[in-house]
Each structure stands twice: as structure tokens, then as C-alpha cells.
């Protein structure tokens, strides 16, 4: 069966990928952003997952309003980088895992999650803007992806609770996959920002920090909120946070947040949070004792251990 190692919540604003593409690592305006992703990059390099399953949103790049899917699962072997108006980013095409994705489609539909299916379409910054911060694309991507698009552009959006349930259904799909695979779940979007009207530029760091706390400690509370609450507290595009809920729903209740970073330079609050699952198989008593001691140390020390 596939094993879920943990999860990542991350913003996906295009300037994150833009900063990477322009080599802004040591630019003082951007260095804090890169620094915030370093522990995520190191964790992935150490854990070496085979597949990243993405909950993300398209930005009218892959899909248009003539048919905008609420939930849509990508089942391709390859995903080209979408042209969003100035030519595609110069990064390699993303590699899919069609065998796993087809299994997920079968599992989700039989679990009464009648998801749309797509293939042979490009992917936009909703996936790859943050991806290059923690998965080096050179010489090629370290592993494969399975993308799940969520509509956050055209209301009615799926409810926060439904996104959480989608995450749970994806967890069941992964745990029933017959082959051994190491998987990490990624939810992209947010945090506070608004990109329309006179209220554009709205941010709310107090709410963002509360969200980062609740997504780890009490995600059920977030599933009870309405889109209007997310939009009032975090701006219209703050509603993208429902994709973090799908990610969190795919993790076990015992998953622990071991790192987070927050940077708000311009219009979008750029956050990243890393969640780790406890070992999935019962460990020998000595190991359990070591873990119990470790859990009394700080999250940072545990991440480093």
C-alpha cells in the first residue's frame, strides 16, 4: 500500500516561482522566503517520497469557464508547463503517476466522490510556483505528481467541509493502492490576499497566524466556517485555504506540524507549513520510548533529529 509520510501546506502566488526563476535567493527582499522553504526541501530530500499528491487550483489556464470543474483529477504520464500569457516557465514538464492516479479515480468514484478526470493538459503555477522551492527541478524532478484541481475561482465553490472529506477519500484511495509507494500530500493557496476591487491588497496577519494554528491543532473548526468567513477574514482569494483543508483531511489526526514560515512582502501572505506523520508501523518498545522523549522536545529539535 502507499504510505503517507506527511503533508505540506503552501502559498502558490506566481511571484514565488518568479523569485526562483530570477535567482533571488540572496536578494534581501526575497531571502526570507527561500529560508522558510529550506526545512521543507531538506525533509523531502531525506524522506525521498515517490509521489506528491497536490490539491491545488487552476487559474483559468488549464480550464475555462465554459466548463470549470469543481474537483478534477489528473491522470497523465506527463504534464506540460502552462503558458499563462508570457510563455511557459523554463522548467521540465511534470511527471505524473498514471497507475496511481487511475487507482485513485476508481477508489474515489466507488467511494461516492464522482470526480472529473483530465489528461494531456498543461498545469499552471498553482502546482509549480511553490514546487521549485522544495523539489529541485534540475536535472529533472526527483519524483512524480498526481494533481487534483479544486475550483476556487467561480462560485459556488466546494464547501470547506467537502474539501476536508475529499482529503479523507484520497487518503482511503492511497492506503488501498496495492504497491508500496511513499507519498506526501500538498495543499496550495492562500494565505490572506484579495485580487479584485477597492479592497484589493487586503491582508490579515492575525487571521493567517490563527489559521496556521488551527490547521494543525483543530482543523475541524476550519471545516465549519463558510466561504464568506474566509473571504471576510482573509480576502476573497483567502478562500483558497480550503485546499489546505483537503491536504489536512488526507493526513491522520496524529500528524504533527514540524515547521512553518510566514512572509508578507507585497499583496499575498506567503506561508509554508510541514506536517509529519508518526511511523505507520508499530515500532519496538525501545523506539517508542525514544519517540516519547523526542516528543517532549521542541518541534524544531524533532525535525532535526
Amino acid at each position, binding site marked *: 500500500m502507499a504510505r503517507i509520510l506527511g503533508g505540506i501546506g503552501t502559498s502558490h502566488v*506566481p*511571484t514565488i516561482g518568479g*523569485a526562483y526563476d530570477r535567482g533571488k535567493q540572496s536578494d534581501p*527582499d*526575497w531571502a526570507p522566503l527561500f529560508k522558510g522553504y529550506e526545512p521543507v526541501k531538506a525533509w523531502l530530500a531525506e524522506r525521498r517520497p515517490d509521489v506528491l499528491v497536490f490539491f491545488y487550483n487552476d*487559474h*483559468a*489556464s488549464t480550464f*475555462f*469557464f*465554459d466548463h470549470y470543474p469543481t474537483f478534477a483529477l489528473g491522470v497523465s504520464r506527463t504534464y506540460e508547463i*502552462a*503558458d*499563462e*500569457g*508570457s*510563455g511557459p516557465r523554463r522548467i521540465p514538464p511534470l511527471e505524473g503517476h498514471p497507475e496511481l492516479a487511475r487507482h485513485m479515480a476508481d477508489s474515489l468514484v466507488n467511494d461516492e466522490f464522482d470526480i472529473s478526470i483530465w489528461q494531456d493538459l498543461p498545469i499552471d503555477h498553482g502546482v509549480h510556483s511553490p514546487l521549485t522551492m522544495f523539489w529541485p527541478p534540475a536535472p529533472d524532478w526527483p519524483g512524480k505528481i498526481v494533481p487534483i484541481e479544486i475550483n476556487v*475561482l*467561480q*462560485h*459556488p*465553490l466546494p*464547501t470547506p467541509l467537502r474539501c476536508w472529506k475529499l482529503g479523507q477519500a484520497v487518503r482511503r484511495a492511497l492506503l488501498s493502492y496495492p504497491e508500496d509507494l511513499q507519498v506526501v500530500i500538498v495543499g496550495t493557496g492562500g494565505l490572506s490576499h*484579495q*485580487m*479584485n*476591487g*477597492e*479592497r*484589493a*491588497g487586503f491582508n490579515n496577519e492575525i487571521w493567517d497566524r490563527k489559521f496556521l494554528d488551527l490547521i494543525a491543532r483543530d482543523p475541524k473548526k476550519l471545516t465549519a466556517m*463558510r*466561504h*464568506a*468567513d474566509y*473571504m*471576510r477574514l482573509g480576502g*476573497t482569494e483567502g478562500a483558497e485555504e480550503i485546499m489546505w483543508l483537503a491536504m489536512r483531511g488526507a493526513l491522520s489526526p496524529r500528524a504533527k506540524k514540524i515547521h512553518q514560515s510566514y512572509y*508578507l*512582502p*507585497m*499583496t499575498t501572505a506567503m506561508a509554508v507549513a510541514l506536517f509529519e506523520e508518526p511511523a505507520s508501523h508499530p515500532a519496538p518498545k525501545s523506539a517508542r520510548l525514544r519517540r516519547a522523549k523526542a516528543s517532549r522536545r521542541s518541534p524544531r529539535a524533532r525535525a532535526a533529529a
Partner: protein
Amino acid sequence: MNPQLKGTEKLEGTYVFDLATSARALRLNRFLHGLTVASNRADFKGDLEAAFDKANLSAEERRMVRELDWAALIRYGASFFCLEKLARVRGVSNPEMVAGFRGEALEDFLKTRRVPGAR
């Protein structure tokens, strides 16, 4: 009314992109979305009026696109994410668009930001 959106009508300066908006501005958004195709961008840069004719845009739609009247485009029903394609073609940054939505000059908007150089 979508119960998930109850209360958003009280948010000032906010335009919710729902099905009514989407239907109203479909032709314009389709035109903007088309700018993800290189040959359409070449047509747009080569002969703007011919591109407008081909998309059958109204006089007001043409004016807003020609003048990059960001605030009016959003009020009209353009999706921000379709406007982003137009901004890329015209070499306009997102902070400039946001300043436009707010009715501010870019430099005034940047004064309200924590790291004005992070563009």
C-alpha cells in the same frame, strides 16, 4: 443565494465572481483567456482592432481592454485570473493591477506594503 456567500455583500470594494458574473462577462473572459495562446498574442499585438472584431467585443469592452481600465474591468465581470493574462501581454505587474483596482498610483500602493521591492 449561495448560503456560503451570505455576508459577502457587506464587504466593500469586493466583487464576487459567481455564475451570474461569469455568464455576463463570458465573451470578454474568453478573449482574455485566449491570450495564453502565442498566436493570439501575436494577433493582439499586431492588430488590436482586428483581434477585437474577431472576438466580437462591444465598444465598452474594447475601451476597457485598450486603456487597461483595471477597476472598470473588474466591475464589469472580468475574472482577475483572465486579466492576469492581459497584464502579462502588456507587461503590467500584479502590484500595478492591484493599485489600479484601488484607484491608486503604483508608488502610493507600494508605500502601504512591507517590502516594496519584492516585485
